[in-house]
């Protein structure tokens, strides 16, 4: 029977595995030394092999020899998604294609796909990063791990698959979709770990409940989430309804894929960055200048040993802050706060900045609503109008129009207090908001 983890202060962290303690638990000084040595070599490698970077660096008047300290990274050019698009498909590759052993492409959430290629050495780094985050969640060789991400061009499926195999776990490559079959497989094969997007895990949970599946007595112990941000209330709900412990990881196709950072069980809202493979900076999204230590800003990543497609100072557009104090789990690698918003998913409604994560938080705190929502923005009347569709739980339904409209007003007020914009709240039938198998699409901005 599945046994979810107790709260952080009751966990004996010495009993949990750490994949690479000599790196994950080393001193800050040693990490910085590893980063500097790798950065110098990586800039050399990139300048010598990728014309796009050579042109950019020449234009800025910076040469590889100018990189002498970690702070010198700021002299290097930023890379944006557009650079990878302009050079589609192979323009940024640093090696002949014979040395590439696998390619992937981004899911194209915002525009054309981005193509990436991995050398055999890149695949080693990638699976090592995944192995680390799987062990942060407690996965060992004894685990049976069921994949509910799609395989294919998306980095999540194969990335997690290789990393789990690296620690000897048994992969059950079910793939995305066919929810009832997933539940049957958990039952038949004694699956202990489910890999899924949080919204699909919630869907599996709901379908199971509807079929009368008893999650409490299932073998399932944990969920490894990714592919989309996991709001805390959604995680908490999945954990209590499926009787499992859920962690999630962070990554981007452009710098590797999943595994850039992963959540340990000591700080559930933070993720340890694989700092020996990724140099991080946090900058003001408007100016590109570094923010103060521990302050919120845009995460900028430089992979330190990427051979197939080296990337310097990649602008993630993800907003976070980074903490460098040692963690109760025993790791010393820096922790980034989980990304809840992106500098580019901010909506401007009648001049006010609104983040979808704010809507998500308000809805998550109303226990008569399901966590599913959709934001629709239009300006048909010349004025921006924001509609928030929310699903009532069956037990919250009242037979009285008065009570239902009071309920709608209450949800509207709560949203207005946080957003400082008055949305139109639309109640939708339970199950009425489409469930995503991959990334959930929460915003439909019809003004564009």
């Amino acid at each position, binding site marked *: 029977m599945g046994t979810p983890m107790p709260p952080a202060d009751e966990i004996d962290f010495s009993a949990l595995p750490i994949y690479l303690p000599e790196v994950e638990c080393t001193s800050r000084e040693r990490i910085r030394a590893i980063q500097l040595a790798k950065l110098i070599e990586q800039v050399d490698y990139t300048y010598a092999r990728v014309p796009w970077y050579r042109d950019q660096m020449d234009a800025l008047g910076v040469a590889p020899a100018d990189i002498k300290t970690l702070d010198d990274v700021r002299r290097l050019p930023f890379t944006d998604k557009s650079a990878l698009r302009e050079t589609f498909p192979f323009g940024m590759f640093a090696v002949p294609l014979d040395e590439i052993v696998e390619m992937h492409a981004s899911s194209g959430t915002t525009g054309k796909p981005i193509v990436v290629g991995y050398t055999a050495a890149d695949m080693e780094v990638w699976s090592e990063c995944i192995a680390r985050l799987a062990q942060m969640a407690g996965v060992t060789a004894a685990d049976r791990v069921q994949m509910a991400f799609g395989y294919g061009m998306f980095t999540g499926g194969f990335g997690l698959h290789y990393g789990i195999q690296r620690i000897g776990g048994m992969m059950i490559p079910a793939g995305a979709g066919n929810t009832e079959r997933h539940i049957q497989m958990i039952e038949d094969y004694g699956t202990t770990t489910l890999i899924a997007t949080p919204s699909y895990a919630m869907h599996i949970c709901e379908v199971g409940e509807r079929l009368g599946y008893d999650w409490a007595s299932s073998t399932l112990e944990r969920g490894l989430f990714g592919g989309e941000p996991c709001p805390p209330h959604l995680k908490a709900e999945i954990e209590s309804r499926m009787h499992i412990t859920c962690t999630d990881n962070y990554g981007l196709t452009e710098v590797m894929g999943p595994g850039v950072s992963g959540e340990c069980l000591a700080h559930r809202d933070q993720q340890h960055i694989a700092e020996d493979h990724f140099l991080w900076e946090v900058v003001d999204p408007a100016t590109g200048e570094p923010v103060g230590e521990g302050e919120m800003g845009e995460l900028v990543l430089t992979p330190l040993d990427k051979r197939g497609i080296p990337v310097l100072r990649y602008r993630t557009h993800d907003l976070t802050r980074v903490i460098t104090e040692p963690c109760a789990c025993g790791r010393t690698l820096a922790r980034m706060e989980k990304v809840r918003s992106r500098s580019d998913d901010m909506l401007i409604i009648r001049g006010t900045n609104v983040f979808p994560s704010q809507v998500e938080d308000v809805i998550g705190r109303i226990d008569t609503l399901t966590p599913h929502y959709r934001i629709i923005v239009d300006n048909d009347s010349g004025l921006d109008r924001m509609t928030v569709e929310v699903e009532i739980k069956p037990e919250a339904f009242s037979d009285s129009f008065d009570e239902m409209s009071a309920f709608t007003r209450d949800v509207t007020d709560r949203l207005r207090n946080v957003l400082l914009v008055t949305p139109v709240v639309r109640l939708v039938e*339970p199950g009425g908001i489409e469930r995503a198998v991959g990334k959930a699409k929460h915003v439909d901005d019809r003004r564009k």
Partner: protein
Amino acid sequence: MSITQISVFVESRPGHLVRTLDAFAQAGIQVRGFCAGDTGEYGIVRFIVDKPDEALALLAERGAAARASEVLCARLDDTPGELRHVMAVCADHGINVVYCYSLASTYIALSVKDIAAAEAALADADIALVGQEELSCALAGVTL
């Protein structure tokens, strides 16, 4: 004496009410009366059916937002002024009828806050009230 009504939350869009009616039809549940009200965005549709427990279980299983509540059911004589008579009795006793709708044939369902008080007032005025079983017998063969 009261009868059970099933209320269902339905979005005001084509095809949404059909889902509920499909479920009833497939399960052989007979609709004896209904009323549908809306707010523009969504509606509450209320049903009087022959097997309310079954209907509610069916809707719950489908994950629908539905609930059962008790309403009074009065049988009217087929003569002018009968509906007025019922409403006048309620008014004279200060009983507010929250909503009211007619079923198949000359039966009306009345929603009031205090069922017992309204029942007493109507019974005193010789208005025939019917319960679940009696309604089933009376409306056998009258399905909407």
